[in-house]
């Protein structure tokens, strides 16, 4: 079964540093998402991306965050100046959006655990 992959699995960074989290969505998928989950809390939507632009973003996704699909396969989340409260699991997800089969099934990656010290 195709799967979404994410790298690294764990990233430790110092406050104020920039981090880039990488995701490779399923190859024929068209819609891409980032979510985060602070330890012990619920999964929170950050941003959705379609046709090389952001289609929706949450209040969490402020100017410190950006997303990019640089080469047609990778989908990245950049945090420009990390804060302690950015420590969380970050999940990438994708969906085909072709209107067939499981149309609401977002495929999630295994996540990147970001620790900001």
């Amino acid at each position, binding site marked *: 079964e195709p799967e*979404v992959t994410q790298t690294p699995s764990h990233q430790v960074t110092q406050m104020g540093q920039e981090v880039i989290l990488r995701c490779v969505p399923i190859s024929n998928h*068209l*819609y891409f*998402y980032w*979510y985060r989950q602070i330890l012990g809390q*619920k*999964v*929170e*939507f950050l941003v*959705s991306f*379609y046709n090389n632009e952001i*289609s*929706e973003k*949450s209040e969490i996704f402020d100017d410190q965050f950006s997303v990019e699909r640089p080469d047609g396969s990778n989908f990245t989340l950049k945090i420009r100046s990390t804060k302690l409260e950015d420590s969380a*699991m970050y*999940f990438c*997800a994708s*969906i085909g*959006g072709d*209107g067939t089969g*499981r*149309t*609401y*099934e*977002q*495929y*999630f*990656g*295994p*996540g990147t*655990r970001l620790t900001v010290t």
Partner: protein
Amino acid sequence: LAKTTQPISMDSYEGQEVNITCSHNNIATNDYITWYQQFPSQGPRFIIQGYKTKVTNEVASLFIPADRKSSTLSLPRVSLSDTAVYYCLVSSGNTGKLIFGQGTTLQVKP
């Protein structure tokens, strides 16, 4: 997006059938009901989706009454590996964001 309410936690024993009910009183005509499962330190995983009546797949069944104000996820003969958090989500459109609640933490005991 319709708000969902589900129990915070449930306990069961191996081999039992588990039913988790979710309330979504404000569900809209275009909304679908979707359930996800999440194991610790993993991403959520799609289980099942339905619009009305009953849907069954190889993993679970989903029962939706005629008024669609609630739904019940049924897991037949659970095992220890079914210990996870189960999320009920209601959304319209097949490409939009997912809004997760706190979910139901299911603990399966031997």
